[in-house]
């Protein structure tokens, strides 16, 4: 099955704003599904609440659109009840890092065999642009009108610390790399976490002098620092700029995992 055949044409047009990065992330995920040759009857997409979590509604297979932040707990139940299923969770920064933070660390700790794709747009997009736990310090949002005063979470580092077997981060600009990373995650037994820095021009860019979609993608491209390059900078004793985030495959390991198909 090709990626295109996984789409539910009857659900179009989608609800995403013009220029939203979520479509890119869904497309890359389905390209990875195509690469792995997964079949509809053995694949489940699960999501929580938010713009990211609308994704399973556009995909023609079984899905659970669950409560805010709890997708991983529901997904754990699905996977353990039927380890034969390929389980993919779509989530966002508000869903995963805020209200669902506890489920995130425990799913990583248990290393449940599933692939978690997080669309991190650094804002609560669906409710209109409130500050989330990944809103960068100083960034404007409707609840931080003069700039966020709190530090932001590094979700990939959190997943690594909590025990996920595969962790990668890319952006909506890096589509080829993203497809490869998601596919690699899907092949890795245990929890695979792929964080995608993505643009929300409507509710993030608009408040942060990144009004055009291309401005936001350019921001993501220029702030992404390849992990190998970062390590080189560190080795050379050079400073890594605070506003940069690492991209690349950040961890691949073989901790004991739960729910792996025998």
């Amino acid at each position: 099955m090709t990626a295109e055949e996984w789409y539910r044409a009857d659900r179009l047009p989608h609800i995403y704003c013009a220029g939203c990065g979520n479509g890119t992330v869904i497309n890359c995920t389905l390209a990875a599904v195509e690469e792995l040759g997964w079949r509809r009857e053995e694949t489940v997409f699960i999501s929580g609440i938010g713009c990211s979590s609308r994704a399973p509604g556009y995909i023609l297979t079984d899905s659970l659109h669950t409560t805010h932040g709890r997708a991983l707990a529901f997904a754990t139940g699905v996977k353990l009840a039927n380890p034969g299923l390929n389980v993919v969770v779509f989530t966002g920064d508000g869903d995963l890092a805020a209200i669902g933070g506890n489920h995130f660390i425990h799913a990583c700790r248990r290393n449940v065999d599933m692939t978690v794709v997080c669309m991190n747009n650094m804002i609560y997009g669906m409710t209109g642009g409130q500050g989330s736990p990944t809103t960068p310090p100083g960034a404007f949002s409707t609840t931080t009108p003069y700039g966020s005063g709190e530090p932001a979470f590094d979700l990939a580092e959190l997943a690594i610390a909590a025990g996920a077997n595969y962790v990668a981060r890319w952006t909506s600009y890096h589509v080829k790399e993203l497809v490869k990373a998601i596919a690699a995650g899907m092949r890795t037994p245990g929890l695979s976490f792929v964080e995608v820095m993505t643009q929300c021009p409507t509710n993030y860019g608009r408040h942060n002098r990144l009004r055009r979609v291309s401005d936001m993608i350019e921001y993501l491209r220029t702030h992404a620092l390849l992990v190998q390059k970062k390590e080189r900078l560190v080795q050379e004793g050079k400073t890594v700029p605070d506003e940069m985030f690492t991209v690349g495959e950040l961890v691949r390991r073989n901790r004991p995992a739960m729910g792996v198909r025998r």
Partner: protein
Amino acid sequence: MMEIMEGSHAVAEIVKYCRPQVIAAYPITPQTHIVEALAQMVANCEIDAEYITVESEFSALSACLGASAAGSRVYSATTSQGLALMFEVCFNVAGMRQPVVMSIANRSLGAPLSIWNDQQDSISLRDSGWIQLYAEDNQEAADLHLIAYRVCEDHSVLLPAFVCFDGFILSHTYEPVDMPTQEEVDGYLPPFVPYQRLDAKDPLSMGMYATPEYYMEFRYEIDRAMQRAKQVLVRAGTEFSEQFGRDYTGLVEGYRLDGADTALVAMGSICGTVKDAVDEMRDAGKKVGLLKIRTFRPFPAPEIADALRDVGTVAVLDKNISLGNSGAVGTEVKAALYGSGIRVLDYIIGLGGRDVRKEDIAKIVDLAEKGEGDMFYGLRTEVL
């Protein structure tokens, strides 16, 4: 001063004048405009308050409980799934007798997911020990916050309150609102004086274990406080009427009930539609009236029985359903009128944002007069 205001902004504005010291809330549609506006006010130093951008509704109400226990006037707002997530904390706030005031922009509960209005969210927490007030319009939504703080913080009550107003129908609608000044609000709502608070110099523990020898007495005390809240609500409403000229003296409010054969009973914004429908039916010679329930908790059973004593038929409009039984308001009105001989029929309406129009109200009256009721009204049978 009279202003054209969105319901959410009217609530945010009045909350500002109530001088909360700690605000903690999480974004959720259709409540978000309230806390966005308050975040802006705090950032602009228009309110001397801490605004906590918490990570969930559970944390929002937990932070409010902590801040209230430490002696602050606190505020939060939520709806639907957010309120459902607060379920555990709600019982704790009431049990620890903290006078938290929280706005509920009423919305239905999933699944299936719906962001539209009904009153299932707050009504599902009717047994939690929170006072529940329901607003008909944006003016009432704003005014009830002043009354709620007055009543909750009264040392004979010390209970939390929901101020409920219908999501989207009021929260996102612009209406004229007579907004009082800070001085006028200060004249009505004195600074919060905690009955007791966490103080290291005089330590106390809240929420500790109550063994079977004590637990029932704690629950009894909360219930007694709820009963006392009725009189305090009437007193606070009367003083409000004297100062601001808007009448909130009653826990319920009758509309054209004199000589009515049939009375509709409803809560929230639907009352505006019902009043228009009643006017049209009265013009057509039908003896119909409305009893609006403003205070759902404490439940004003004697007041309802008194207001409806002369009618023959009562049609209760319920924007909620206690699945497996019937609407919550209908059930309680039936209990309030038990033994009176008045026929009470319940209609489940407007769930998940289904529109209820004047002609629907007229049809419900016709059904009630024929004795047909205790039903879902307006089902699309073609999709069942």
